[in-house]
């Protein structure tokens, strides 16, 4: 008897129904497949326990200087070696590979932003928008927008977010993910107008810091061109708390594409 397709095991570990009753029978009796499913399931459980995994924090720059001082190496020389790759031969190539990858990644993003036609989306987690998505004949990612903390809010340094914009037919969707510390209150997603005053609330992020939102029909994204996520206290107010966690701007290419959708 052949083993269960690794793809089926991977999907099952994520909790998706996959495979056939034959796979059920096999997975129950085959030690290899049962073990494989167990180790993938353990990984998924670890990832999902307590919401999105923590984002990593970079130590302050002074720490490296302290380390270098304590062991008696020149922090600047060593840092240059790390950055320029003129140190040990092997790490060298590691760094070159990494910077090449960075360039390729930027190239890909530019292609995504420039080459698309129709709509908007960002989001994960909700179901209302997704029903539309799955019924639509074709949806396209218009833009993937990185959301970053504002300089005025240093306490959010290290927090990141992503907004994916998509259009399907006449509907525009936005899938938002945030990687922020757990704080009391909740995270809310807004569109900000150019005048810096007008704003539209899209809704609140789920406990796992994700959300899928349908953009209001007819909204002019050339005006409401920025995405903002705020931390809102549980005080009953429907106004923006003025605590902006991360923010990002819709690229011009996406605006044109969205408005013509």
């Amino acid at each position: 008897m052949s083993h269960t397709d690794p793809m089926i095991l991977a999907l099952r570990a994520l909790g998706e129904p996959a495979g056939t009753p034959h796979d059920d029978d096999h997975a129950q009796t085959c030690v290899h497949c049962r073990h494989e499913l167990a180790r993938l399931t353990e990984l998924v459980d670890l990832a999902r326990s307590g919401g999105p995994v923590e984002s990593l924090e970079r130590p302050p720059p002074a720490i490296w200087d302290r380390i270098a001082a304590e062991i008696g190496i020149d922090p600047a020389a060593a840092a240059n070696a790390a950055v320029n790759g003129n140190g040990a031969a092997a790490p060298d190539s590691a760094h070159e590979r990494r910077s090449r990858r960075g360039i390729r990644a930027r190239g890909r993003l530019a292609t995504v932003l420039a080459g698309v036609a129709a709509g908007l989306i960002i989001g994960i987690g909700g179901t209302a928008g997704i029903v539309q998505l799955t019924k639509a004949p074709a949806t396209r990612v218009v833009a993937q927008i990185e959301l970053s903390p504002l300089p005025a809010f240093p306490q959010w340094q290290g927090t990141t977010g992503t907004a994916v914009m998509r259009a399907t037919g006449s509907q525009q969707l936005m899938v938002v993910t945030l990687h922020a510390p757990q704080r009391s209150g909740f995270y809310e997603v807004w569109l900000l107008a150019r005048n810096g005053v007008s704003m539209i609330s899209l809704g609140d992020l789920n406990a796992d810091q994700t959300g899928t939102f349908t953009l209001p029909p007819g909204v002019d994204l050339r005006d409401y061109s920025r995405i903002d996520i705020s931390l809102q206290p549980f005080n009953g107010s429907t106004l923006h708390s003025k605590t902006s966690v991360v923010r990002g701007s819709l690229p011009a290419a996406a605006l044109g594409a969205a408005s013509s959708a």
Partner: protein
Amino acid sequence: MDRAEDEDVSGAFSKGHPDALALVYERFGSLVYSIAVRALGAKSDAEDVTQQVFVSAWRSRDTFDPGRGTLGGWLVTITRNKIADAMRQRQRESRVLLQVAGGAAVQAPEAPADQVVDRIMLADELAQLPESQRLVMVLAFYSDLTHGQIAQVLGLPLGTVKSHIRRSLQRLRSRLEADGVAH
């Protein structure tokens, strides 16, 4: 950074090349610091622990055996030890303070839960994935979307999403096992 690259760093480190420590710090500094912040709360304590970990790792680099585990896993072990030291130190200090103040017994400090450390290591490995694979996995883990819906949301071919999911799950699992997260 790919695992092969981690191995490059690891090899240069165990040979004692001074520049290699900078690379090791660049690759693993955030991992060590993040674990320390989560365990100790206070940033200044986490900074001290981070410094101690890399100084200690450098001085005892001869004891690192790449054949027995990954450099990341070895550093995490040192991090756990330094955190435990810092907690004992805190306990001593608070006991002295309480004695001075005429107070009662002090609660034993808690070591960081394995799961907390494991999750930070997973975050680290997730961050090493290429961008499109990372996005697929974030959606697969944390959204209610099926793989078919993920393909539509991201505008990727279904086959690409499926293979990203299969390969990334395998890769994350293998790396965490190599780092010593396997239970």
